[in-house]
């Protein structure tokens, strides 16, 4: 049995594993506990990275949907990419909420709070679960792809609106730690956090490549299945004709 791996994806997967292991070692052992947050601070080495990759995944879905809809770049591959990226994005967004909850419970005292970023992430997740449900609806391949692409874009244009509305509504979440003139985080902690970003970016890429190949094979199998069925029916008809004559 052959898998969907090639040398390139094996290297990619290996790099992902190594960087992830590095993040674990740096995050759990090398870095010191925080003055204020204690051991809880260790979640910062993975949580922002996962959240960011979730957002990137949905961005890729929106972009691929747009490229599919634009006639000059219309290609089945964009549709496949949009779908698999959304799937991986849903996993990352769910993990974001889970890791955030695990951190929020001891820090804020609650599993969930109606903070701006939490609410935005939850709504983003709901939007893309809807998108995946739309993709699952059977139909002719071309029309399903167009439908999904438009559905993906309708959801994507909602994201900034959701972001602003929820931001005005409430803000409790920490501001950005990394993207400012003077990062609030230094030395080995910064390294661990950045390594976490690299690790999850590699994991995202690895998952998307494999998922894409599986999906590609599945659609090809579907096409071939249709052709085989047609050929079989034709053969049956020929046999019948022979019997009759």
């Amino acid at each position, binding site marked *: 049995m052959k898998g969907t791996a090639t040398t390139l994806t094996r290297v990619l997967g290996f790099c992902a594993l190594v960087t992830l292991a590095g993040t674990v070692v740096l995050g759990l052992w090398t870095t010191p506990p925080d003055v204020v947050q204690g051991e809880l601070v260790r979640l910062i080495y993975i949580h922002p990275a996962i959240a960011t990759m979730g957002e990137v995944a949905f961005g890729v879905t929106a972009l691929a949907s747009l490229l599919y809809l634009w006639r000059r770049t219309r290609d089945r591959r964009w549709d496949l990419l949009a779908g698999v990226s959304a799937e991986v994005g849903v996993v990352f967004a769910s993990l974001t909420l889970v890791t955030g909850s695990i951190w929020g419970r001891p820090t804020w005292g609650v599993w969930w709070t109606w903070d701006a970023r939490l609410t935005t992430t939850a709504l983003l997740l709901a939007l893309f679960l809807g998108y995946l449900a739309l993709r699952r609806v059977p139909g002719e391949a071309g029309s399903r792809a167009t439908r999904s692409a438009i559905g993906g874009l309708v959801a994507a244009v909602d994201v900034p609106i*959701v972001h602003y*509305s929820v931001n005005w509504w409430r803000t409790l979440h920490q501001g950005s730690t990394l993207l400012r003139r003077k990062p609030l985080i230094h030395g080995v902690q910064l390294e661990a956090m950045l390594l976490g970003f690299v690790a999850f970016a590699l994991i995202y890429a690895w998952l998307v490549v494999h998922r894409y190949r599986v999906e590609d094979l599945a659609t090809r199998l579907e096409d071939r299945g249709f052709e085989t069925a047609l050929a079989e029916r034709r053969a049956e008809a020929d046999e019948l004709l022979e019997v009759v004559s």
Partner: protein
Amino acid sequence: MLRDALLVAGKDLRIERRSRVTTNQVAPFAVVVLVLFAFALDPDRGLLTRAAAGLFWVAVLFCAILAVQRSFSVESADGARDGLRLSGLDPAGIFLGKAGAVALQLVALEALLAAGVVLLYGTDLRGGVVLLATCAAATIGLAASGTVYGVLSAGLRVRETLLPLLLLPVAAPVLLSATRAWEVALGTGGAGDGAGPWLRLLVIFAVVYVAFGVVAFGALLEEA
């Protein structure tokens, strides 16, 4: 485009007037939702008066789903959608017409719900201009986004379950903004920054989805 829009809207509203589905089913449903909220929230503690804005808009959201579903189920019978496609009407016009018809029905339902909120929850409708502006912007936004998703899920076997899943998260900012704007007007929420930002957000939402529908409706109608 506008002429086509008026034609389609006239057709949809005529169907509603004759079939009376909106008046005989959706409107009573809206009232039932208001009553159920009262059961759920215990009417004696003033909770309903304070939550009136949010409950009103949740009820509107539910009605919007029904109205959109209805708007596309009338097209599914007798190959009406093919007729619409072959009619040579401008797709943008069809979109504006269908969204307009949904919006008008929603306005009627909002009037009913507002009366219900006053009578059942003891809400004092103050700040009329903000209330009306909120209604106008939110209704257009809901009708436009609903119509986009309506045609997207029209013709699919799972449309009854798919439409709420697709529409409700997208419409979440409308619920949030409209509720906050109403709370400011009614004086039931925290003071905050006033209704201005919320109204602006509602207008942006409406503009974005009307524009989206005008551009994308042709392709969607082809695929439905």
